[in-house]
């Protein structure tokens, strides 16, 4: 194997002299290889990347024996000299393509800026190079797109522009920090293919930082796993996935939801709980002083489905297909029209006080466990809120007992009730949200991507908890998600949504194993699967 392009020895980073985030790690990246650093959130993988470029926040302290880039000791360079290395010899792609582009500059000028920064080229040559870069990242119609602003581009296209900017300096090493996390599955696959493609063309090294083991298995040459600031296992991809040595790695691999698990579901018919027919959710676009309706956005465009008692229907689709809107408008959080019957009560005929009383039937668990709880309320009060609103007769003592019971059901310690949400981790917060929804004994819980903000191992725990609760309480779920592997784990039935319409529905085995629609097939093909044959 050729000489390492980047070698890091005994790197430690701590915050405020106390909290050690990166703890004495060493690794090497060789020319032309794809090195993947995998770990759960908070394991210090992004900080490691930032510390190589010395882009750490002010309160961080860095300690390392060697950070060596092609024989250059980066630790000896001044900040000024490092500026020439960043972008020129090491390219960087950030996670969020929405916020890493300047919204008031055209994408062409943003790429040009970087080209001009690194190469002393005449005006025309800069233009040429910019166009060439945009072609290289396979942006459609680059000549026209060069004058577009970031908001005119889709998420995947923006990420392509980000890659073009990172490539502008012709770097020898490209660091990609979760480059596909905020993108849809199909786009995710395209971006990964692009990265791999460019790497083959230019021969640069790719340092991929990700939490997604399946994704890493399909692209990386070598993998390192980080846990609490330490690298616990490093190895070539094939041996890493076939014979994981460290228990933490094994735990991670076991926690991955598997597509095959959908075959184990039994299909027994139960009475229907929720019947939705011809449901629409249109947003009017108003213009002018009289706010005339000029057009409508058809977020949900005539869908019908049923959910059986104690069963789970998964609603699958890419972002923007209207699945979240549908979930929320079932709870009347977003106005919608159509027939919604739950337990024999027609919800859309109700309003005001009568609707408020029926609220107990459907509850919701949100995607982001950090914004779904009032930061200024105690956890006990958060859980008890629904009981207070819907059952005003319950005494404070009874409420307390009920809250303790609920905390126990979601496996949280009883003293959690007297603490604030920020003291809990993401997974624990999601448990609190589940307890809050359960407090009013709902028949149906809308789960709006409840696991997508969580780490793999935590995700598995939450799904197990949801399944247990379903068996105990015979509650139904409408499980909104973009993650087909999770669907296979939990759902009984699946409905695939595309542009506001349900294009395919049926039992989980039917849809996932023998999809009929082309779109469903495309979705399934894009799901990264653990790749064992290397």
């Amino acid at each position: 194997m050729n000489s390492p392009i980047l070698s890091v020895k005994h790197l430690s980073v701590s915050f405020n002299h106390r909290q050690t985030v990166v703890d004495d790690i060493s690794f090497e990246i060789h020319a032309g290889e794809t090195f993947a650093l995998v770990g759960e959130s908070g394991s210090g993988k992004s900080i490691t990347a930032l510390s190589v470029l010395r882009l750490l926040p002010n309160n961080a302290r860095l300690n390392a024996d060697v950070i060596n880039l092609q024989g250059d000791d980066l630790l000896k360079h001044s900040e000024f000299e490092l500026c020439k290395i960043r972008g020129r010899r090491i390219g960087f792609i950030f996670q969020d393509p929405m916020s890493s582009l300047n919204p008031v500059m055209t994408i062409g000028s943003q790429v040009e800026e970087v080209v001009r920064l690194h190469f002393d080229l005449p005006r025309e040559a800069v233009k040429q190079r910019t166009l060439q870069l945009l072609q290289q990242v396979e942006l459609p119609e680059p000549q026209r797109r060069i004058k577009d602003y970031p908001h005119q581009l889709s998420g995947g296209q923006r990420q392509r522009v980000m890659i073009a900017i990172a490539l502008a300096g012709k770097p020898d090493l490209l660091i990609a920090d979760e480059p596909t996390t905020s993108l849809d599955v199909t786009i995710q696959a395209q971006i990964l293919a692009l990265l791999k493609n460019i790497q083959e063309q230019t021969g640069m090294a790719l340092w991929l930082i990700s939490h997604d083991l399946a994704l890493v298995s399909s692209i990386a040459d070598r993998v390192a796993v980080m846990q609490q600031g330490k690298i616990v296992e490093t190895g070539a991809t094939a041996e890493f996935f076939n014979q994981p040595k460290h228990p933490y790695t094994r735990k991670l691999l076991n926690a991955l939801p598997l597509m095959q698990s959908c075959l184990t579901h039994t299909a027994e018919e139960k009475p229907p709980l929720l019947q939705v027919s011809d449901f629409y959710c249109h947003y009017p676009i108003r213009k002018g002083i009289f706010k005339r309706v000029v057009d409508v956005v058809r977020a949900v465009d005539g869908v019908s489905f049923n959910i059986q008692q104690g069963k789970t229907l998964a609603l699958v689709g890419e972002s923007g297909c209207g699945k979240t809107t549908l979930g929320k408008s079932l709870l009347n959080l977003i106005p919608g029209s159509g027939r919604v019957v739950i337990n024999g009560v027609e919800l859309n005929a109700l309003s005001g006080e009568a609707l408020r009383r029926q609220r107990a039937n459907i509850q919701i668990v949100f995607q982001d466990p950090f914004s779904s709880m009032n930061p200024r309320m105690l956890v006990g009060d958060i859980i008890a809120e629904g009981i207070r609103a819907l059952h005003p007769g319950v005494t404070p003592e009874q409420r307390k007992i009920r809250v303790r019971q609920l905390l126990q059901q979601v496996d949280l310690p009883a003293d959690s009730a007297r603490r604030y949400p920020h003291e809990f981790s993401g997974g624990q917060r999601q448990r609190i949200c589940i307890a809050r929804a359960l407090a009013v004994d709902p028949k149906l819980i809308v789960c709006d991507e409840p696991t997508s903000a969580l780490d793999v191992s935590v995700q598995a725990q939450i799904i197990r908890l949801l399944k247990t609760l379903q068996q105990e309480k015979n509650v139904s779920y409408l499980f909104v998600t973009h993650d087909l592997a999770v669907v296979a784990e939990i759902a009984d039935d699946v409905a695939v949504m595309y542009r506001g319409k349900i294009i395919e529905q049926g039992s989980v085995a039917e849809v996932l194993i023998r999809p009929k629609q082309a779109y469903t097939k495309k979705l399934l093909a894009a799901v990264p699967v653990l790749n064992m044959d290397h």
Partner: protein
Amino acid sequence: MVVLWTDALIYVLIIVMLALGVYLRGKEHIQRPLQQIGRNKIGMTSLVVLLFFVLIGLLDSVHYILADDKKNEVISLLDDFATPLREHGEKTYSAPFATTLYSKEMTMLADGTLQWAYPRLAFGGRHLDHPETEKIPDILQKAAYGLAQGASLIGFIMLLMWGLLAEQHKRFMRGSTAKTVWTVVFIIVSFSYAAIHLSAYYHIFGTDKVGEDVFYQAVKSIRTGLVIGTLTTLIMLPMAIIFGILAGFFRGWVDDVIQYIYTTLNSIPSVLLIAASILMVQVYMANHEADFTSVIVRADMRLLFLCLILGVTSWTGLCRLLRAETLKLREMEYVQAAQALGVKQGVILLRHILPNVMHIVLISVVLDFSSLVLAEAVLSYINIGVDPTSYSWGNMINGARLEMAREPIVWWSLTAAFVFMFALVLAANLFADVVQNAFDPRRSGNE
């Protein structure tokens, strides 16, 4: 005891603050930022300065009628403490620490001859026989005496506290912030003692056109500044909060109506509104002379209305901020979760929206406070501020307009007003900065 309108409001305000303090005890999410403020040296120093101003303002807010006085004069506790100073009136301008008037006058000597010279002051430096030689040593000696008096008093108090405090409370005196705070207290007390001692013999900031002591005027102005700062915020606060939150939460026609109100209000020049309402109050008081017997009651009424109209014109900024924040908060998932749980809208507003906009309210209250103190000075300058007979920095600055054009220049009124106002506004601003940092959720995370 006489309770003026503004006095009553100040008392109510203090009671509310105490109640709020008791209510917030043990609320962990409030305690943390407060502790952060408590550890901040700049914050605590400016707080001590602010509290010193507040103390003077409070002393000046307890009014009563002198028992043995025939004139039916209403005075405050502060006036009582400053009694010799209050009555040490000269004939006209005299410079700080002067023993003679600022301009020459024709005086008749004992032997009947007329002399064109600087006459001696009635009070300033009266005890000196030969001011030319004795004045400076005398000033130094008296200043040192006052300093020593103050220093020994505060030193004694500190020793007493150190002795009496139980061991677990000694951290109030031990930490580095505590030491800074005690140093500031020490300096303030010593220097105010020196100033008090000196002012019994001299006019330390000189006298104004009618011979009144400028130091006394500046100290009396503290109450006016504080009243305008606090009462005005108190009046604007409910309007801003209620309108802002309602507009942001309900949107639709409620939002439209509220937005029309505040854009309309914003488009009227506020000086015009203030001038009109002050004139109305004056006309009202002229028509109901029986209700406003003493000068101080009239001045107080005008001050109250000034606060009222300043409050009515200044709520729009905060209202807009709160509306924007509420628009953001109402889309938060915890608000939607509350809706899904069937929580009533009023409860959602009180329990979920209001506590989460309080940091904005707090920050803008402290920031507005200093701008209002400044606004009063500006309004007095164009004669629509507080009553000309009441003491305020604005009136002092207004008077200084002519003094600055005089030859030789009379600079001390303006300087005194400037120094006091600067100290108060700077302390308020620094404190606001610290409060803002402590309560800003985005910042408190990494500190």
